């Protein structure tokens, strides 16, 4: 292998490797052009799948990864060639129309799948670049925290955490960019809202002055978040700009881990880091998968962004990123033609030939939307924004991008057409089982020979590339959940690409009861249709055995849809959420100072609000609820926390250990800053948290897990629905409606 690579290196000097690659790709393409018998195709499928299975168990490195993905790509291309040229048969107009719709949905899936392999064929695991010894060489940084309607408590934490970042104080300025207290909002016609805006401006201004940050607002709310940031840029002058969402609490090492790349690469315009959330998203919460299953966003931040980075196409995600001011200014600041100003800005700067980097280390901790309404609102904005980029700034046509960058951006924007594909897949079996429309013309053997290897290899690739960060079928669940509402939103973008407006995602909401999400109704319809399709299939199996193969395949498909829809129903049962600050499990040792005694404790979980302490039961008599004590944690992940004032809220026993619930009662802003740095300041803690839930349970494991959750919670959902229909009253409806998404 080494000698082969040495030979290739020699060849590469003459540019021959690219020619060889193209030649080999042509050779593989020739394969598709040759008439292969079904028998040969079966042999290819079997050998291909067996090879993938063997490679799956071989120690992974980039060599095996590239071979694995090459074989899987080949099997899928083979299927697509066959699907395109042999299975689209005209029977009648209606059947053909449905067949073409299904084909388009499949081709969508195939293109996304192919691009995903391209993007992630060899992700780049970029490490932080070292900072120079001499701090004078370090660039100045402005931290911009845009806000619109977030609570002061949330902003206070983010602001103090930004001020606690480990960087020379004279080189960092923190700006709270308030769009909720603009002149326009302070002088709006509604006197109550105007008063609220003025009060907000006063309060946040005070907070900034007290903390040592700058309060920044503007006259009018134009261009939403992009306009807000650009306004702040006019009032600041740092060489680099760190942008943090209002709920994104930075770790202390943020700048030291990111700024180095700007010094190393003068053409670097962006260093992006992951968004890490300390609370479950509503689907995780409702299906109770939090801490057991990797979060949905980890696939993007743990793998895809690294893949994009390998092609110099990691893009700006709106927060947790450092940008170079001089390049931003070249394009007039954050670009705001679309509502995903972040990706649009990155695309524009990439097109000018500047570079980006992605460092896979969680250095902000944020909050996911608490309700499905908020979640869907957020996703609709992303979908609309990315479709806007697809339509208005199509990456394939943009000048200045390299070919891989075009594909990467195309992949990122084209992905958001998934609602069309998901809804088609949800309804396609019905076309045959109800109406006998001929939507897929194949016999069983050919289907087995071509579709079998493709489907199996696609699942294997999914598990291979993303298995630890995205369990099987989770994508289907999340995408179907969003599809019903994103589809009409996407259609609107198509009708008027410039129409969508920026909707702020609600964070830190509290739900005080379980209820069925008002978004559930379309899923009832889909579930009933698919159940009826299964019934129709069963009937036809008995009374129309002629089409047993086609009926079998489509019934299997309908069963799969039901499986996903049950999980959707489970997720649509909104769970009570009382705690506004999420707790993280820890094992930090420390002491509780009671008078002059120092009682050893273990901090078993920790949040910005308080901590749970495990203590020897013998000390119970010395502890009094509502009394103020001092907590002295040990140094953790390099952060020396000092002493915090805490108030005991409750006492309870877990086994023989006394568990004390405490609340932080900081006495000064300095103490609060120290607490925030202690709780949120370590990126290493977030890394370890992520790694703990990064595990693959395989396709079957994932299927069984999601099926169990789906069945259990959908039954609860339907039970609550039945109960609710008997007990429903007006206030209940009003409460539910208040949680509806803003846009759908």
């Amino acid at each position, binding site marked *: 292998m080494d000698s082969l690579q040495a030979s290739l290196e020699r060849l590469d000097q003459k540019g021959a490797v690219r020619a*060889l690659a193209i030649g080999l790709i042509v050779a593989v393409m020739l394969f598709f052009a040759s*008439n292969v018998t079904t028998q040969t195709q079966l042999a290819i499928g079997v050998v291909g799948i067996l090879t993938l299975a063997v490679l799956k168990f071989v120690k992974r490195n980039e060599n095996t990864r590239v071979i694995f993905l090459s074989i899987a790509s080949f099997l899928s291309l083979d299927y697509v060639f066959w699907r395109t040229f042999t299975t689209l048969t005209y029977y009648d107009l209606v059947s053909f129309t449905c067949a073409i719709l299904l084909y388009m949905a499949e081709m969508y899936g195939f293109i996304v799948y192919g691009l995903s392999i391209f993007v992630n064929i060899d992700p780049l695991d970029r490490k932080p670049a070292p900072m120079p010894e001499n701090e004078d060489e370090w660039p100045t940084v402005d931290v911009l925290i845009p806000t619109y309607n977030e609570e002061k408590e949330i902003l206070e934490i983010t602001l103090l955490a930004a001020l606690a970042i480990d960087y020379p104080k004279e080189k960092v300025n923190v700006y709270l960019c308030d769009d909720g207290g603009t002149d326009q909002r302070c002088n709006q016609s509604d006197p109550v809202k105007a008063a609220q805006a003025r009060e907000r401006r006063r309060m946040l201004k005070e907070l900034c002055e007290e903390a040592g940050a700058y309060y920044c607002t503007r006259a009018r709310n134009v261009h939403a978040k992009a306009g807000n940031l650009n306004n702040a840029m006019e009032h600041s002058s740092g060489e680099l700009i760190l942008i943090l969402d209002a709920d994104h609490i930075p770790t202390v090492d943020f700048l030291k881990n990111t700024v180095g790349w700007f010094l190393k690469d003068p053409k670097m315009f962006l260093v992006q880091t992951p968004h890490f959330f300390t609370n479950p998203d509503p689907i995780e919460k409702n299906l109770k998968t939090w801490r057991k299953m990797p979060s949905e966003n980890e696939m993007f931040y743990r793998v895809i962004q690294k893949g994009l980075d390998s092609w110099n196409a990691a893009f700006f995600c709106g927060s947790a990123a450092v940008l170079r001011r001089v390049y931003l200014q070249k394009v007039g600041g954050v670009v705001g033609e679309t509502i995903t100003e972040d990706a649009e800005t990155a695309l524009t700067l990439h097109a000018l030939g500047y570079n980006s980097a992605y460092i896979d280390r969680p250095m902000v901790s944020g909050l996911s939307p608490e309700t499905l309404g908020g979640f869907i609102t957020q996703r609709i904005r992303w979908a609309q924004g990315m479709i806007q980029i697809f339509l208005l700034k199509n990456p394939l046509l943009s000048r200045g991008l390299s070919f891989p960058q075009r594909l990467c951006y195309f992949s990122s924007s084209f992905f958001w057409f998934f609602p069309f594909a998901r809804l088609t897949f949800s309804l396609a079996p019905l076309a045959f089982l109800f109406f006998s429309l001929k939507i897929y013309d194949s016999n069983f*053997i050919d289907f087995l020979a071509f579709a079998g290897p493709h489907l199996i290899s696609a699942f294997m690739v999914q598990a291979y590339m993303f298995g630890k960060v995205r369990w099987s079928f989770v994508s289907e669940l999340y995408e179907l959940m969003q599809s019903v509402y994103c589809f009409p939103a996407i259609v609107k973008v198509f009708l008027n690409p410039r129409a969508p407006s920026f909707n702020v995602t609600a964070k830190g909401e509290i739900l005080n009861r379980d209820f069925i999400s008002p978004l559930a109704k379309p899923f009832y319809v889909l579930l009933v249709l698919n159940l009826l399709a299964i019934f129709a299939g069963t009937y036809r199996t008995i009374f129309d055995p002629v089409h047993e193969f086609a009926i079998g395949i489509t019934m299997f498909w309908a069963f799969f849809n039901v499986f996903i829809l049950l999980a959707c129903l489970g997720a649509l049962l909104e769970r009570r959420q009382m705690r506004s600050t999420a707790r993280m499990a820890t094992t930090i040792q420390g002491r509780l100072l009671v008078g002059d005694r120092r009682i050893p404790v273990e901090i078993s979980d920790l949040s910005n609000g308080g901590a749970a302490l495990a203590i020897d039961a013998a000390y119970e008599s010395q502890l009094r609820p509502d009394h103020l004590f001092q907590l002295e944690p040990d140094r953790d992940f390099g952060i020396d926390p000092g002493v915090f004032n805490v108030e005991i809220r409750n006492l309870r026993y877990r086994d023989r250990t006394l568990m004390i619930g405490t609340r932080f009662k900081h006495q000064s802003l300095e103490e609060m800053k120290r607490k925030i740095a202690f709780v949120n300041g370590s990126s290493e803690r977030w890394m370890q948290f992520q790694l703990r839930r990064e595990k693959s349970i395989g396709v079957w494991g994932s299927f069984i897990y999601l099926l169990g959750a789906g069945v259990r919670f959908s039954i609860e959902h339907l039970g609550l629905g039945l109960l609710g229909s008997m007990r429903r009253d007006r206030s209940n409806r009003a409460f539910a409606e208040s949680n509806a998404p803003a846009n759908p």
Partner: protein
Amino acid sequence: MALVIGTNAGAQTGLRSVGPISQPAAVPPITTAPAPAATPAQTAAPASSGTLRMPLRQLVGAKEPIYLMTAQSTYTVFLPVSARYNVRSAKMHLAFTNSIALLSERSVLRVVLNDKVIGQFYLTRNQPDHAVDIELPAKYLKVGSNQLQFIVSQHYTLECEDPAAPELWTQIHPDESYFEAVVSWNKIIPNLGLLRDMIDEKLWDTYAYNVCFPNTTSGGLSPSQLSWGSIISQGVALNLTYRPLRVTTSNSLVAGVDNVVVGQHNELTQYLTAAEIGAIGGSFIAIKPMPGDPTRFLLIITGRTEEEVSQAAYAFSLINFPLPDSQYAQIDKIPPLEKEFWIRNAPVRDPGIYSFRQLGMEKNQSIQGWNTGSVQLETYMPGDLSQDDGSNIELRLHFAYGAAFRQDSVLNMFVNREFQYAIRLDDQRGGSAYGYKVYLPVKAFQPGRNLVEISPKMVPLVTDHCTMIQSENLWFTLYRDSDFVVPRLQKKARLPSLNLFSQTAFPFTSTPDGTDLAVLVASRDNSTVCAAWTLLGKMAQISGSVLARAELGFVPPKNKKDLLIVGALDTIPAEVLTTSPINLQQLGRLRYLMQVSPTPEATAIGPIEEILEKLRGVPAERAEREQPTTIEMQVTADLLEDTVAIAYESPFARARGALLVTARDSLTLLNGINNLQDRLFWDNLAGNLAVWNKTPRSLATARIGPEFIYKVDNPIKRTQNSFNSNPILFVAVTFLTIGILAVVLLQLLKKRDKKQLQ
């Protein structure tokens, strides 16, 4: 395809019919025999009145005997009677044998001609062998096809019986049975519209005609004349369907046969008046009675230039639709024909969906009764269809069947008489299916004509002993909108193969217009020329197309085409003979061949090899490949009256086919090719060497020399072919390529990463 046909008023383009023409003043010379000496069999002019005989086998076609089974059974043949005959009397000699278990008093054979019973015979157990003469009353015979039915009622007991008992049988012997008729020839009506009835497949005797070139020089025919005669012969052959033809050529008319006079209009002064010649404005076809013999026609094919004559000849060959009721016509234009143009027998296009209606099932077919027939579909496969093809042809059957069938009622499906698939018709409430999918392996099909048979076997629910058995419920209907779905077929012709040649005339008809065919007529004498025309006519019949673009010549055509060589052995160029797999260098002599036992198709294999074999698809490969069965011995003997056909790789083009047909002399060669049209010879061609003789009747075939794959003539194609033949190799190379590609990609990716991190 259609000719552009104008009106009598005079269309500017197309085929125009013109008014009656008169005989020229000067009566052309008529000889009683063609210029080359021909055997009496070739040119014997049918007497104006005479006796004709035709074996029953000629109407049955298949090689197997005719069996009439069960208590009641019918076998039908169609007896042709040509419009050119005036049948004075006719009879049938019928030979048959019945089961000795039959009850003579109640077992009867009826012979029914056009729904009239013309004879009935007891099926006697004591004298089971019968030979009877049955008069076929002339008044019941009509011009065209006459339905002749053999209907048996067979019983073995007076009591109740099993109507499907195996001892209920009668066999008719088609080789010993024959028809005999005393006929005279009718006067022809000089009308181009009736030409198709004059060159008639319904003639009992072999159709003979003479091609007359009035200006033939002493040096023999010109290449143009050679080509015109070829196209005309193919046109005649196509009109005769599969019946043989006899062609002669001369520079004057020949008595006792139809004559086709061909040449430029100024050469035909003997046959056209000056006014008629002056009126000819392009390609021209005319018909007249033969001077002195009104029972024969004189067809004139002419034009002002050679090109116009060629067009007229081509137009004649394409005619498969009645021409206008006119004595002559002018062809202004033949519309451009698509490249893949067949008059009939067009091979299926792949992939494609054909309805049964397109395969000849004109209407829905209902079948009633126990054992009363089947639906037969005729389909043509490409000549280069590979027998390695592992794919399936899909039938989407739309059918209905009656109620109260017994559980063992089935719908059997056959391809070329071989059983392939069955569907149970076991729903006692009756049933129907729309789009019932049946898969027939492509391997069951052969290049050329294939017969797909769908045969319901329906048994009543109640068949107890001595119970009234209801058979009126036994209905099966197959709808004509059922589909025949052809997948993408694998094409690979392993040559040389006379078997393939006899089935499809492949490779010489690989392009239906003969673009890829060169014909070397080794000498200019009339017998050799007629031999070549006859062979081309037979090929046209088999392929169903006119090889109008075939390149015919008297010198070796050194091009990249398939080569057909016809000539006496001493006229064959040495460069053609030297590459032949069998040594024909010693003129007039053929080395003896020694028959050898076949070697095993494969050695004994273990379980792993067996799996590999299955993956590799070896059985198909084995099935197709013909092993050499002979070794050439160093003993030679004269060819004498034998005719030899040798197929091998063209001496002038790699991976192209060549077929050499030769004999000791040109007359023997002509006789040999005339005899080759006999199905007993033609259908039994095999291997790549055939030697035949009519008296005594003999045909020997052998396989000798190397094989090659048609048109696989460069490394890429040869490699592709190897892959298709050997899936294991294909899979290995595919994955090896992917592996190398992955390594190369890896190298590029490493370089990219290095650049990104710098």
